[in-house]
């Protein structure tokens, strides 16, 4: 491959536009012989490239640093709604044309919105990469917001909300847990938005959202797979040349105040069994304690070998479902545990057993080979996620967005491997005390 500094210089010399000048910002090893390279154009648009010729495919991903935590009160869900509107069309490619063009070349494409980011991706046969660049650059620059389309998408999103939340026991309970624990914090409202807010968006709201957040200095493009780096960077330079940077608002701050007492909510929902969801305030993804809690979650809840799962689900048969998760968010959020009781058994018994386990985890270090087994499983999971071009791109995009470190998944794996039982004990004592948690109990209606 061409020397990256020289390549950036050559492309910069080829344009008179300040916004189109290209800077090489460094490379990082990405496992084996691969290298991820970081670039930035004059208007702030960042590009990460990973050339991998193991299969004739390429993943093109557009990551924006806006998600539901950036939404204003009364406009919850707007980031997700806008993701839908990004398929509205442009003058050059009217509504539906983007999907048609992509499907005609066999591309997989979709988009996702979460709390901290929004991502659009296309996985394509390698020779079709120019199409993705053309379409993405065009809609970022020339999106047309048609009021009729806004109305139609509103109905689609309301249907999505009914499907995922209103008619879904776990969706309803999870929404209650997050709003109870995180309240007015940036993560206290659902990414899909409250129904009343979804019904209230105006076209002007959508236009303002686009103007504010869909600027090149809030975008990271990831290209992973089989492609020629020189040609692709030249094409990006041309395709995104008309964009201008915007002044991005400061993101909302997180509250450092942690609840002092346990809060309980009870819901009656059409569930065949009793359920409990528990949430503790959790650290941000960049906090070293996040690593410890992620390992602890896997060690205690992550399947048949895991200590609490084995006891509650397999041995004592108190629960039929049990999982824990700690979302990878930029700001402090939640450590969540969900229990579905066995039929005919009160969930309180499973909860009591869980609490005894957690007391023990806060009292004594893990012993034996539990920690080593957990590390091996996490290594397998991380490597499995890197098998495809899309998986690699996904890791690069996510770590760039949250940590500004495109090869961060490897450092994260090293951090898992370095953990000691003392690290887990310290993190458990700091984060898993019962007094600050929220508990949502679901009783069958």
């Amino acid at each position, binding site marked *: 491959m061409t020397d990256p500094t020289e390549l950036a210089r050559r492309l910069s010399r080829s344009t008179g536009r300040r916004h189109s000048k290209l800077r090489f910002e460094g490379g990082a090893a990405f*496992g*084996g012989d691969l290298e991820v390279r970081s670039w930035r154009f004059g208007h702030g648009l960042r590009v990460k490239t990973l050339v991998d010729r*193991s*299969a004739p*495919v390429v993943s093109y991903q557009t990551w924006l640093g806006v998600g539901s935590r950036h939404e204003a009160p009364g406009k919850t869900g707007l980031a997700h709604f806008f993701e839908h509107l990004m398929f509205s069309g442009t003058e050059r490619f009217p*509504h*539906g044309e983007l*999907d*048609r063009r992509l*499907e*005609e*070349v*066999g*591309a*997989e494409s979709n988009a996702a919105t979460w709390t901290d980011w929004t991502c659009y991706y296309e*996985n394509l*046969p390698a020779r*079709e990469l120019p199409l993705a660049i053309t379409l993405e650059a065009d809609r970022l620059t020339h999106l047309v917001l048609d009021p009729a389309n806004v109305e*139609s*998408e*509103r*109905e*689609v*999103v309301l*249907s*999505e909300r*009914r*499907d995922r939340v*209103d*008619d879904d*026991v776990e969706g309803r309970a999870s929404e209650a847990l997050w709003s109870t624990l995180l309240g007015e914090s940036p993560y206290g409202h659902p990414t899909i938005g409250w129904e009343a807010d979804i019904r209230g968006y105006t076209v002007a709201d959508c236009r303002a959202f686009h103007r504010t957040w869909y600027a090149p200095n809030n975008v990271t493009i990831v290209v992973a797979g089989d492609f020629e780096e020189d040609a692709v960077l030249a094409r990006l330079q041309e395709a995104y040349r008309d964009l201008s940077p915007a002044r991005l608002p400061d993101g909302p701050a997180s509250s450092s105040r942690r609840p002092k007492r346990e809060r309980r909510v009870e819901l009656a929902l*059409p*569930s*065949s*069994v009793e359920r409990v969801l528990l949430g503790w305030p959790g650290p941000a993804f960049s906090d070293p304690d996040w690593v410890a809690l992620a390992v602890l979650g896997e060690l205690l809840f992550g*399947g*048949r*070998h895991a200590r609490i799962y*084995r006891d509650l689900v*397999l041995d004592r*048969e108190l629960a*039929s479902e049990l999982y824990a998760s700690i979302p990878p968010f930029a700001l402090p959020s939640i450590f969540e545990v969900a229990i*579905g009781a*066995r*039929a005919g058994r009160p969930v309180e018994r499973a909860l009591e057993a869980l609490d005894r386990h957690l007391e023990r985890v806060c009292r004594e270090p893990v012993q034996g*080979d539990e920690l*080593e*087994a*957990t590390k*091996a*499983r996490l*290594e*397998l999971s991380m*490597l*499995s996620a*890197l*098998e*495809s*071009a899309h998986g690699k791109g996904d890791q690069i995009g996510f770590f760039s967005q949250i940590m500004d470190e495109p090869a961060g998944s490897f450092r994260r794996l090293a951090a898992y491997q370095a953990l000691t039982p003392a690290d887990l004990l310290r993190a458990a004592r700091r984060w898993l005390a019962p007094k600050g948690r929220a508990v949502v109990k679901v009783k069958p*209606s």
Partner: protein
Amino acid sequence: MSTRFVHEGAPVLLEESHALPLVDFVVALRGGALLDPVGQEGLTRMMARLLRRGVRGQPAAEVDQALALLGGRLSVTIARSSIRLHGSVLARNLEPFVALVARLVREPALRTGDLARAKRRIADELRAVRDDDGALADRHLRRLLFGDHPYGLPVGGTLASIRAIRRDDVVAQHTRAVHRGAFVFGAAGAVTQDELARLLSAHFADLPTRGRERLSVPAPKIAKGRRVLIVDKKGRSQTQLGMATLGIKAKDPHYFPFAVADAAFGGMFTSRLMQEVRAKRGWSYGASSQIGVGTQREAWRVFSHPSVENAHACAALELELMERYVAEGPTVAELRRAKRFLAGSRCFEEDTAAHRLDLRLSAELFGVGDDHLARYRRSIRAVTREDAQRALQARLKPRDLAIVAVGAADVLGPALGALPGVTEVRTVAFDAPI
């Protein structure tokens, strides 16, 4: 690199790739839920689940811990005509992993206590289906379409059939299912052919011999007319709506034209169904059609989830779209787009060693052979509009449909009963046995 060799008469499929220090190792057995005796539905799945529950002298907890320490994952999936034990492991631990999988397959403990525990767990899972409207709709839809035909019986069994299983049944089913003629091995990732052959010789030598059992599945027959089943669930704002009729079989001469026609109708984001239901009307977040594949004609299904208020209009629209589609076939533009999509997107089923192995295993187990894979793109590209229309008219009968809706019966019953061609409307409670 793709290779194929034979171990004790069993095909071994290898996709070698050293891009990552990982190996997928698969032991597949021909003959899945179709081996279940009448009244003992779920027996094969039960037997396969118990394979994970330890070997003689090594209880389940020790097996689970050993797998975890190796950085290994092992899942068991049961289809109607095959069982697959699919493992993934860090390459440095491949040998002990293969050794452990071999013991699980060949010397399972099949303990009475584990059987009792598994029965309770499966009963719980079956009850949990009641909370999942989509899964509930699909389960009822198959049953309504196929009735007592093996394709209508749930792979995992029913509460009653699971309760009836005894340890002797499980042991007998293991003997019946695990024999030399049933095995197909597969591996993908950082392992060479020599190494794989050595591992199989070391751990899968002297496989038990038994005559290969020919599983014969009768051709399914479905009832005439449109039959509606409402699965009554109060308080739902959304309806899970499923429609099904007979589709195609794996070796059907219409296979490729039908696959193209299905993609154009409901298999893509820009397909006719999605455009009409979601894009134009916003009635449902998703609307799609799906082909099932079996040795006999499987189901062709259409799913959407409109609000209760829109359920009738949405179902009526879908029926109209189906009828018109079968009569007229896809447009030239739809056909072109579907062909390009299927041929182009094939690369994502071949982009990793694990994906390529999966394709080859499926072809092997369905008996369509590597040739089917090699000519996939060519066959898709060769489909004409006339071929697609012929396949639709030969295989799809939208007048003979099973229609299932999960939601409030007091609204849905009268609404769906008024659809054209409906000959029967029944209602069952969401927690009724199935």
